[in-house]
């Protein structure tokens, strides 16, 4: 170990721990861990400077399978632990791995305030729209009507949109990808890691046992190209087999609409160009739902601001390590 960690360039396999991975065969988490290990290797990070912090859930078993530092904490609180770690040592590179229940149900408030404070951590939310570890109850992101052990007649609640939530609470980096889109996912993760401040990455993850096919509506091979738009800063918002379709603002409104190049004189330049610094555009993009509109994937919003712990640190640096005796004898004293 010690020797390896001095090797400058580690391979993805170097980020695997010696623990047997115990997700169900076919679980989307396998693809995600591969992607993260590849991301770390390609970015050439040091294992000893990397910490994975998680809550409780299938997704949250993640740290056990990484050869970095890791903390499998309690349900929903990972962002708070991560904040503490950054306040103890801002040098560390901290990743939070969470699930839709862990990060948006019991942990919603910590996700909220960690994003709001802009603590420099990467929050990866594995969204399988179900409670996996506890055997399949509906979650805050489950579609209305989901049949589950706790909703035998179908769930009644309206689902939360993870990314609309993140934007609403002031996140400065919001991105989305899918477990099966390895290359895309790695690209997004790299951007998240490079972004200084809180990065929120929603990863659609298939729970093959309790919610299989939750995303097939836009991930099925046959549908993918027509139902996914991969956004890239500065590039027009095009999709479809031949990128023949695009998005634009429906004239005189604040709604997005799909238009096809050629249709009544629409040209490629009429299409909206993605500006990842535009919060308003971002909220329109994350709200898109098939079949009418494609699902937006990629870095949807990125507009950096000072990270919370940097401000804390600079204050400490400003004046550190005052003399204890001076402190305790401060104020008025007398001698007997």
């Amino acid at each position, binding site marked *: 170990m010690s020797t390896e960690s001095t090797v400058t360039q580690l391979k993805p396999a170097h980020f695997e721990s010696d*623990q047997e991975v115990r997700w169900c065969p076919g679980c989307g988490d396998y693809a995600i861990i591969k992607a993260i290990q590849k991301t770390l290797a390609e970015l050439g990070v040091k294992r000893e400077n990397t910490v994975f912090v998680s809550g409780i859930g299938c997704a949250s078993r993640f740290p056990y399978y990484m050869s970095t530092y890791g903390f499998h904490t309690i349900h929903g609180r990972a962002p708070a632990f991560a904040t503490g770690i950054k306040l103890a040592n801002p040098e560390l590179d901290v990743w939070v791995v969470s699930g839709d229940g862990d990060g948006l149900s019991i942990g919603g408030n910590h996700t909220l305030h960690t994003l709001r404070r802009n603590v420099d951590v990467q929050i990866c939310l594995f969204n399988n729209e179900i409670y996996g570890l506890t055997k399949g109850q509906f979650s805050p992101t489950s579609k209305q009507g989901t049949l589950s052990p706790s909703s035998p007649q179908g769930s009644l609640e309206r689902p939360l949109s993870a990314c609309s939530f993140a934007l609403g609470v002031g996140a400065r980096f919001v991105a989305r990808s899918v477990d099966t889109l390895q290359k895309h996912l790695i690209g997004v993760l790299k951007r998240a890691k490079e972004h200084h401040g809180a990065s929120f990455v929603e990863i659609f993850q298939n729970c093959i046992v309790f919610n299989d096919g939750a995303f097939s509506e836009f991930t099925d091979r046959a549908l993918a190209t027509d139902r996914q738009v991969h956004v890239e800063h500065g590039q027009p918002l095009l999709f479809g087999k031949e990128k023949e379709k695009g998005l634009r603002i429906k004239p005189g409104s604040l709604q997005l609409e799909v238009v096809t190049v050629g249709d009544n004189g629409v040209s490629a330049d009429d299409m909206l160009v993605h500006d990842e610094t535009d919060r308003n555009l971002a909220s329109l993009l994350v709200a898109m739902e098939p079949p009418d509109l494609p699902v937006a994937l990629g870095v949807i919003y990125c507009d950096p601001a000072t990270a919370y712990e940097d401000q804390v640190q600079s204050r400490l640096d400003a004046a550190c390590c005052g003399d204890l005796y001076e402190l305790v004898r401060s104020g008025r004293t007398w001698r007997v």
Partner: protein
Amino acid sequence: MNSKSTDGRGADRAEPELPASGPIRLREVRDATVIRFAGDSGDGIQLTGTQFAMESALAGVDIATFPDYPAEIRAPAGTTYGVSAFQVHFGSVDIRTSGDELDVLVAFNPAALKVNLADLRIGGMVIVDASSFTERNLKKADYESSPLEDDTLAPYQLIRLDITRLVEEAVKEFGLSSKDARRSRNLWALGLMLWMYGRDRSATVEWLNRKFAKKPEIAQANIAALNAGHAFGETAEMPSDIVGYTVAAADVAPGLYRTITGTEAMAYGLLAGARSAGLGRIVFGSYPITPASPLLHAMAQLADYGVVTFQAEDEIAAICSAIGASYGGALGVTASSGAGVALKTEAAGLAVGTELPLIIVNAQRAGPSTGMPTKAEQADLLQALHGRHGDAPLAVVAAATPADSFEVAIEAVRLATRYMTPVILLSDAYLMNAAEPWAIPDTDALPDFPVEFRTDPEGFHPFLRDPDTLARPWVRPGTPGLEHRVGGLERDYDTGDISYDPDNHARMTEARAAKIAGIANDIPLQRPELGPEKGPLAIVGWGSTYGPIYQAVHRARAEGYDVAHIQVRYLSPFPRNLGDLLKGYERILVPEMNSGQLVSLLRSEYLIPGEPFTKVRGQPFKIAEIQKAITSRLDR
């Protein structure tokens, strides 16, 4: 006050000498006196009291103070629930409580009189600002008729002064509005009281000049009022039946002193502890709550000392951030009260399971639920010991006095870092706010217990235990070769990996318990504070009951009663000789501000018939109450 002798390092520093008390008329001499200033939140009562205490301390008498403000919200002027008070107990004997009955009550309005009169001893002196006893104010205080007219005050020595008018006169040269003039009433009264006890005024004058540096005319007016009050006492204007009192200086151990509140002492102690442990950084994660918030505020003042304060979104995030910080290699500390502490129990269990150092300060207040947020109680002891799911042992210590909070905090840090365990540090609403003189310690002479972070990968695993302490190694993330995972799932004794093995669970459960139990060998043996090691009766206390118990036992012994005072600082684990010591007494009486929690632990642990003596009124015990309990048990 715990007056340890110390030569500090101040010897080489110029310190004010004991002021010679000025020329004085015939004076009665008193051992100790309790006075209370009471008025509207807006009347500057807290400042007045603090200044009086300061001048007294500077005069070398021993003091103890206690502020009593209204419930959190500022109430309308003149109402009974808007009354603010500040009590000062000072004397030449050593003072360990803020006092039982009042000798002097200064009441700025009818409501203040209404609320506080009951605490004035029969024959005591009550000084009122007659000009504030208007129809309106009397009504607000629900007085049918004016207590200055009817015989409400007959049992007392009433001094009715038209303070408002006197002040207005005193300051008119500065051309303040009469509204602004009234603002100086408190200083006029302070002047009078300083005269009454032959105190100096210079520190107060200094302070006023500093405070109002930007508004010199205000400073001048206030000083004028202060002097006017003093002069009023000095001159013949004073009613003939009033004389000044002398309270001689107490013979406290020599050393450099300052006054300190439990909150300040706790903050300094946590910092001192971190320094002793060689930890440059404290991460103090907290969420405001009465009466713990002042500690958050005090820690926030220590940024220059490597203290990071994190005001979290709630108490759960607060403790989790502190645990995260400890995992990250800093000292994680969290503090709260009542409801907030309840919210921390789940995460505390994780700290027990992952065996990380952590300090949890509980400033206890009256419960259950929101209860009486500003009032003191000791009803969280059993929660501290057992308020987690599963068998989750940790260390519990309690502060006995404001100044003691400093030493207990250092000790908490020592145990947390040496044994890799959460430590619950119990204080309460009384201790946090009360103040007493403090012999400033030589900080270079404080105990030294540097943490050794593990850096050697050889044979490392995260739950490899130190044979002596059974503590696991503490590793700073960032250390190459020691990358490891910890978590809430049960861990294998031999590898630290997740384990569902039944025998391993039993083994780890025992190891966690044995580690905490082992602390008993690393703490002082229990000794009585006062009295014999065997005898007919021991009064056993913990936390803030220290003061009244000590005084009561002290007085009872002076009257010839054979009684001992045992003060338990370490509540988990108990000192290893506690059981034997207690068995040496025929009777054990345990005064507690709860329904009998320590006594239940002693009974269960040692099968001794300890007797509860409980008080759940959100107020400290009175010395007399405990003294009576002692004598009633020993007479016959």
